[in-house]
């Protein structure tokens, strides 16, 4: 009889805490077009799989009359569950409770689930929706942030870490997402910045809206802080679930293999690419022509679209694609695209995902803004990332492979495992136009008709050097393949690379150019 009473008491206590910040606060949250923290978790995880911990944790603030305030769960929900049957740790800040502000116990709950995810080697998802530090808790809330950042760094490259920004995430709070692998944002809901519009206005006199300063579009398109952009929370959750399909649980495992399938589209790959190397096309059409089910899950679609990165499958296995995009900025490498590709290459390497590189680029983007923005050190990141990667690395040169770009895009010289080239490949120091102007400068200048002579020399150079056979003659590429055989060659190369084992020199860590 008394046991029954205890159970009823537990249920009563639970139902009290589950109210979060109360009806009014929830109404406000809904009016902003947002779901509640608990709804979000339930949507992301498999049905019935969520188990919550630390429900009864209470805050410890004793100043500013805080001791009389009850903050349910201290404004954050933590727990474990599954996505597609795979275990996961998750936390969600609850904006309805004191604006999701981060105090000491709030942070303790987050670090507890982080420690758990690292110990159990399962992925971590963090949903951020918080006004920031709880001012009343002073330095304790700063301590809380620091403890979170440290764990983000510790877990980096060991377990996949995903941040979802579903509300404000301002000041120091932004650095937890920035340290994680993938950041998801939603239009009109996500807001990230170090210094908000009001401070910027009083200190600097610059007037800007929250959305224009640090809205979802800004981070997906301009800053590169966000990797996935969605129009609604539900679309965002579907993106998260999709991403998880491609990832392993941790760095000691491989992503779950699925049933192999042929590409859906049967358009000939050779018909996608224009024969004129100066004409654009969408490289994603090629990727979709070679992946299982023609599926390609693009990452950072809006940021630096002159390079395309993302996951697909070959023979059921997750692979990462890094591909120049001739459709945008002719597919050049620049500061942003180098940064984007390099980080993705390191991600793939950390989580045992083979890297497929599709190459078609004229070189680096010329311009004072690029040079002054540090295209040298940003560009170096790609070289570094490829060179240190020990996962299988396969390159297919589609058309142009000129100069520094050729070296950077996983060339043989950076120890690519396989380098294939289409017969349309042009592997040279630069394109025929530029090369002819330099090599035959004298002949062109002294000719009666310099323009006609230039064209003759361009054609001469094109004939001799703008092809894959000079590089093939040196063994820099392994085979010149027919475009239609691309998928077949990739499947075979992956099969051969399955047990790849290389050892670099022992070191604590390298010093990448970041």
């Amino acid at each position, binding site marked *: 009889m008394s046991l029954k009473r205890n159970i009823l008491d537990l249920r009563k206590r639970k139902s009290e805490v589950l109210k979060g910040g109360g009806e009014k606060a929830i109404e406000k949250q809904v009016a902003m077009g947002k779901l509640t923290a608990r709804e979000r978790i339930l949507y992301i995880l498999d049905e019935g799989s969520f188990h919550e911990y630390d429900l009864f944790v209470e805050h410890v603030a004793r100043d500013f009359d805080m001791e009389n305030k009850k903050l349910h769960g201290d404004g954050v929900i933590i727990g474990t569950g599954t996505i597609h049957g795979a275990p996961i740790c998750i936390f969600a800040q609850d904006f309805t409770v004191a604006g999701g502000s981060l105090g000491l116990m709030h942070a303790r709950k987050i670090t507890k689930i982080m420690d758990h995810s690292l110990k159990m080697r399962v992925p971590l998802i963090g949903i951020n929706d918080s006004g920031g530090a709880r001012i009343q808790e002073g330095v304790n809330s700063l301590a809380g942030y620091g403890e979170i950042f440290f764990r983000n760094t510790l877990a980096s490259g060991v377990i996949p870490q995903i941040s979802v920004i579903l509300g404000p995430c301002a000041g120091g709070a932004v650095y937890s997402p920035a340290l994680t692998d993938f950041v998801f944002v939603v239009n009109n809901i996500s807001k990230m910045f170090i210094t908000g519009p009001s401070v910027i206005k009083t*200190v*600097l*006199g*610059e007037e800007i809206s929250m959305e224009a300063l640090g809205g979802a579009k800004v981070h997906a*398109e*301009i800053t590169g802080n966000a990797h996935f952009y969605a129009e609604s929370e539900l679309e965002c959750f579907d993106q998260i679930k999709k991403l998880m399909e491609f990832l392993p649980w941790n760095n000691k495992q491989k992503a779950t293999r699925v049933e192999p399938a042929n590409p859906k589209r049967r358009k000939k790959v050779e018909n996608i690419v224009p024969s004129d190397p*100066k*004409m*654009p096309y969408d490289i994603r059409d090629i990727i979709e022509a070679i992946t299982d089910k023609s599926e390609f899950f693009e990452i950072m679609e809006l940021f*630096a*679209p*002159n390079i395309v990165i993302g996951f697909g499958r070959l023979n059921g296995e997750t692979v990462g694609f890094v591909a120049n995009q*001739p*459709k*945008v*900025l*002719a*597919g*050049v490498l620049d500061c*942003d695209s180098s940064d984007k590709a390099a980080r993705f290459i390191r991600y793939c390497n950390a989580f045992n995902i083979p890297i497929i590189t599709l190459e078609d680029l*004229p*070189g*680096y*983007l*010329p*311009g*004072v*803004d690029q040079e*002054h923005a540090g295209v040298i050190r940003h560009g170096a990141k790609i070289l570094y990332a490829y060179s240190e990667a020990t996962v299988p690395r396969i390159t297919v040169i589609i058309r142009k492979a*000129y*100069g520094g770009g050729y070296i950077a895009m996983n060339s043989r010289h950076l120890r690519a495992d396989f380098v294939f080239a289409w017969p349309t490949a042009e592997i040279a120091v*630069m*394109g*025929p*136009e*530029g*090369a002819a*102007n330099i090599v035959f400068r004298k002949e062109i200048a002294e000719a009666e008709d310099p323009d006609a002579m230039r064209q003759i020399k361009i054609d001469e150079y094109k004939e001799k050097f703008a092809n894959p056979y000079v590089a093939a003659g040196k063994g820099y590429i392994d085979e010149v393949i027919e475009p239609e055989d691309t998928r077949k060659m990739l499947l075979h190369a992956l099969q051969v690379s399955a047990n790849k084992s290389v050892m670099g020199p022992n070191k604590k860590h390298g010093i990448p150019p970041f």
Partner: protein
Amino acid sequence: MAEKKVEEKQYDTIIVHSAVYKTEYTQKYINRPVWEYPNENHVFSFMPGSIIDVHVKPGEKLKEGDSLLILEAMKMHNNVQMPFDGKIVKIHVKPGQKIPKKHLMIEIKRL
């Protein structure tokens, strides 16, 4: 033929090593900062802020390092100095004025 021309017109171009590539621009590329050769005779504000005091008059001759004005920015009183020996040509700000970043404050001339 006419059809093809319409299609080609949609593209922008990028020139790398004398070759002209047909492609699309990104918004960020279109909005990239245009570089200008710096004019040594223009003294700009390096931060937005308020002018606290102006120490010079037009026509005044100054030595390198002499104080031109005090610009308060980020709660600091910054002493803006003469970059070389020269004279004051024109003053564009007055005490109390709030100015944005890269605002032309004083024109000077090397002597």
